[in-house]
């Protein structure tokens, strides 16, 4: 594209508008609270507790997505079967369903009116208003992000490597752990981070299932409702800093290191 062309300048100016649209509100919010307010927020036990709970539940959701999602991601990357498109469509459903609907949907299975909910209750598992409930919801919303990243990772590995490994005497299990996993771990880690980043930002679905114990987004909402913008900002800043941290780690890990493959 030549710089003298109008088309070039349209692309550039649209880019600048979008950058400003994303960055301006964030910068404004980040710089609004004073240092003392930030200190006050971080010393507030409720704030710390909610942020910790957010990280803990989002991390757990991502790990569970990793354990159960990896085999499915591998299956989708390696085999063609009838109904594969349907399965892929189902996987994407949590992305398109409105968040409060997710919460309601989960409660309709895990509540007292459903036999699964009753069975869970009998073994002492409570979804409504519990950490277990929060994690369940976060797995639901975060799973697609893990599956996509892991599937892309597996697809980028030549099936020939696995074929050669098997011809050399390795079973499918050995092949997976010696060849596929070491080559795909970076994509899987990216998937875990994507999944937890998505989970940590969830509000609508969680607030339906569990207002208490309070995760950070719910706490921010409560402060905003109860005390106004000024009191919700410091908590928001801390949450954003954490999300940003996650994002930076993600970028760092996806950069290929020079000495490695």
């Amino acid at each position, binding site marked *: 594209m030549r710089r003298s062309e109008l088309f070039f300048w349209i692309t550039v100016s649209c880019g600048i508008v979008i950058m400003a649209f994303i960055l301006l509100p964030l910068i404004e919010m980040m710089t609004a609270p004073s240092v003392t307010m930030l200190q006050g927020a971080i010393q507030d036990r409720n704030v710390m507790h909610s942020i910790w709970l957010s990280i803990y539940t989002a991390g757990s959701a991502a790990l569970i997505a990793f354990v159960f999602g990896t085999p499915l991601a591998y299956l989708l990357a390696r085999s063609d079967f009838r109904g594969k498109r349907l399965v892929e469509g189902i996987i994407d459903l949590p992305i398109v369903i409105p968040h409060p609907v997710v919460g309601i949907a989960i409660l309709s299975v895990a509540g007292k009116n459903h036999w699964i909910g009753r069975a869970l209750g009998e073994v002492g598992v409570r979804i409504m208003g519990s950490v277990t409930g929060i994690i369940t919801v976060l797995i639901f919303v975060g799973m697609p992000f893990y599956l996509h990243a892991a599937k892309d990772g597996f697809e980028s590995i030549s099936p020939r490597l696995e074929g050669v490994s098997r011809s050399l005497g390795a079973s499918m299990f050995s092949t997976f752990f010696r060849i596929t996993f070491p*080559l795909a771990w970076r994509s899987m880690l990216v998937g875990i981070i994507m999944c937890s980043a998505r989970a940590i930002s969830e509000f609508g679905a969680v607030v339906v299932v569990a207002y208490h114990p309070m995760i950070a987004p719910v706490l921010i909402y409560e402060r905003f409702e109860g005390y106004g913008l000024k009191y919700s900002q410091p908590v928001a800043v801390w949450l954003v800093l954490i999300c940003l941290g996650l994002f930076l780690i993600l970028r760092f890990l996806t950069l290929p290191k020079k000495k490695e493959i």
Partner: protein
Amino acid sequence: MITIEDLETRLSGFNLREINLSIEEGEFFILMGPTGAGKTILLEALAGLIPIKCGRVLIGGRDVTRLPPEKRGIGIVYQDYALFPHLTVMENIKYGLHFHKLNRKEAEKGLGELIEELDLAHLGNRLPLNLSGGELQRVALARALMVNPRVLLLDEPLSALDPGFREDIRHELKRLHRSSTVTFLMVTHDFAEALSLADRGAVISSGRIEQIGTMEDIFKRPSTEFIADFVGMKNIFAAEFRGSRAILGEDLHVELGRRPLNSHGYIAIRPEDIVIHKKALASSMRNSFGGVVKGLFDQGFYYEVHLQVGKLTFKSLITKKSLFELKIHEGVEILLSFKSAAIHTF
């Protein structure tokens, strides 16, 4: 010995059909065919890497059709080498030892021999990323041979290499084959390559085997028009056979020196068997025709000359030297001759 009986694959698109093939123990057998003929698919079917619809594969009399790839004793070397990128050269070569209960001393000895034979000693700790094509290929060979397979499948091992390395690896393959008891089954789309390496081979096209035989047989007596063209018989004409003569086009009579069994068919002549000259030759060549030069194509050391005789176009190869000596250029009238023995009929 490998025996393939009525093998058909079950893939979503292209499939192999009715593959029957028998390869002797310790043989160097070559599977030829153009790109997309199903050569690699046949190798992968033998290795157990793709689903089979019907048929059987026997190796040394043992039916391996339903065995997983790791239980077949078949090694595979891919065109793109498929080295494990996260493992060093040495780790790649020793990979199979994790799964084979070899006597440690024997394994060490075999490893030493392979490393020496393939000249890999200086590469041991390097990652595949930093290796040249020829080096990658030698590592892939060592890795496959390390576990003493009964059969080694080679998928176009030379085509991805630079011409310089290609010669090296070709010699290497020949030497490895001689010094081991492993049966080599190699795939190539290059007939010249096949001719220089193997004694026997098969030609495959569109998922079916077209001809099986010695290389000489395939070269000199191609069984179909497709194979004749594939092995470089550029002059292929539909013909009517009358007695020991073939009639091409409307009235070109060619003396065959023998009687073909069929009354219609084809004749094929290699371009290098057609001689071009200005004056009539006093030689044993029974077929001599006048023609007009229609085109000259530079082939490096040779020129391919297209000659129009009646409505037919003959193709001949001549050296640059004779091109100048004969003062050939487009439009020149000239004579072309070929021996009856150089004519192949089918």
